[in-house]
């Protein structure tokens, strides 16, 4: 026998693949009743889905059941959506639930969705309609059942966190047919009371039916109309009601609602202290900055050494003053020098030499003049004396000195003939050394000089 044997694992694998690929059994809705419900400590839910004829093992992992708005329980009829697959260790097919809604109360669901849609359309959930919940309320209205954990949780939390707040309970019915009206009235009453800052409304956990009052339109309406901000806290984390949508703030639990409503007084004190510290630090910083700035300014060079400015100027003045005196003196000296030089040149031009020279020339000329004249005179004298001496030599008197004489008649004619000298006429006889005046006594003609004839007086 040569069969190919599959291992169990192989078989199981093949079956799993077959199932996983079968579209009719993937992502399907099933209507069933829950039995054998168990919630594992880690959050996963294990249960059996059954009807009159069959049952199937089911699991809803924590990741999926986290958002359930109700807690499944045995006998509950539900609508589930999910996939079929094989749990290999047991070779068992299982239904893996992704989403679960209560069946039977399916009507409630429809109503919920319808109202939600309607109110949403009407703008009840609009963010801009949300009122600001005061950070530190003085007076808080708590609208819930006076009994049960919820009221206790809320009040103790409020007192613990912020003992200064005044807490007023407005007891209401939180389930049953009268609950919606009761809640809505209390909301209106709290508004009318005019002394509250904020309202906390809600209740503890319960089934969908138990929480239903908070899905009623009257409650939604009252919340929406409320002047006071409302913190809604219905059931547990997973329970979301219409009230939660309409409310200004939603808290997952009543305790959380109280925590949202009031600040922790210790935190506030810390907060105040912190502001004080920051305030002081900022002020100190500012002061230090200004001090530093001032000190920087007062330490600045110009401020610390104003004298240097002055000293600089002193020095400048000394320099210029000195230059003034020096240059003035120098200028004066220069002028003096110029004058000295000119003066010396002038002195050297003293005309005394020239006067002397002229005087000398003058005296020479004068000498020459005198000499010229006197020489001429001398020369003429000489010339004259020469003529005179010559004349002297030639003088006819020399002949007469030899005994000749010249006889002149009265007519002063030289008497050459006797008839020139009649008797008794007077004659003048010129001798060499003088004249004789004679009278003719007689004439004796015819006789030569040899006869003698001269008659003396």
């Amino acid at each position: 026998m040569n069969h190919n044997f599959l291992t169990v694992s192989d078989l199981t694998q093949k079956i799993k693949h077959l199932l996983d690929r079968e579209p009719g059994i993937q992502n399907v809705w099933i209507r069933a009743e829950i039995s054998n419900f168990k919630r594992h400590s880690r959050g996963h839910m294990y249960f059996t889905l059954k009807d009159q004829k069959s049952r199937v093992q089911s699991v809803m992992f924590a990741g999926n059941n986290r958002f359930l708005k109700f807690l499944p329980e045995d006998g509950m009829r539900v609508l589930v959506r999910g996939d079929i697959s094989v749990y290999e260790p047991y070779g068992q097919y299982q239904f893996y639930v992704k989403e679960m809604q209560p069946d039977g109360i399916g009507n409630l669901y429809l109503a919920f969705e319808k109202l939600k849609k309607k109110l949403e359309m009407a703008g009840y959930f609009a963010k801009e309609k949300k009122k600001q919940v005061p950070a530190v309320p003085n007076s808080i209205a708590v609208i819930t059942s006076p009994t049960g954990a919820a009221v206790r949780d809320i009040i103790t939390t409020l007192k613990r966190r912020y003992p200064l707040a005044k807490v007023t309970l407005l007891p209401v019915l939180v389930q049953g047919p009268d609950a919606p009206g009761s809640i809505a009235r209390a909301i209106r009453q709290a508004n009318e009371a005019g002394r509250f800052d904020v309202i906390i409304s809600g209740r503890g956990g319960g089934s969908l039916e138990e929480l239903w009052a908070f899905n009623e339109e009257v409650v939604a309406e009252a919340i929406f109309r409320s002047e006071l901000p409302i913190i809604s806290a219905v059931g547990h984390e997973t329970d979301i009601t219409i009230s939660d949508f309409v409310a200004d703030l939603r808290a997952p639990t009543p305790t959380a609602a109280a925590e949202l409503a009031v600040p922790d007084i210790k935190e506030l004190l810390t907060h105040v202290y912190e502001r004080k510290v920051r305030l002081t630090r900022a002020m100190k910083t500012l002061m230090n900055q200004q001090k530093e700035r001032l000190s920087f300014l007062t330490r600045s060079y110009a401020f610390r050494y104003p004298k240097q400015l002055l000293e600089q100027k002193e020095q400048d003045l000394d320099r210029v003053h000195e230059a003034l005196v020096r240059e003035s003196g120098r200028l004066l000296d220069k002028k003096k020098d110029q004058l000295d030089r000119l003066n010396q040149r002038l002195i050297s031009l003293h005309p005394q030499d020239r006067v002397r020279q002229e005087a000398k020339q003058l005296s020479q000329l004068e000498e020459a003049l005198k000499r010229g004249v006197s020489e001429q005179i001398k020369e003429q004298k000489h010339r004259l004396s020469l003529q005179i001496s010559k004349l002297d030599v030639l003088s006819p008197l020399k002949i007469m000195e030899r005994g000749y004489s010249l006889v002149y008649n009265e007519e002063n004619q030289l008497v050459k003939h006797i008839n020139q000298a009649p008797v008794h006429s007077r004659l003048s006889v010129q001798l060499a050394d003088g004249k004789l005046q004679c009278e003719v006594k007689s004439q004796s003609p015819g006789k030569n000089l040899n006869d003698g004839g001269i008659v003396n007086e």
Partner: protein
Amino acid sequence: MNEKEPLTFEESMKSLEGLVEKLEKGDVPLEEAISMFQEGMKLSKECHDRLQKVEKQMTEVLSEDGEISTFQVEEES
């Protein structure tokens, strides 16, 4: 600041916060700064005092017909 209507704690805190922020920005004139500091410290004291003034407030019950009574919280059993 209006003296007639005392500030709420929140308003005081807000003022305080505003002062702190302004001061921290640092461009506040000195005289203004010290005023702000004084004002801030005053506010801070006010806030602190308010928080410290613990008057045990009784929880009241306001019944539907307007009656007020005290409410005793059930101690957790």
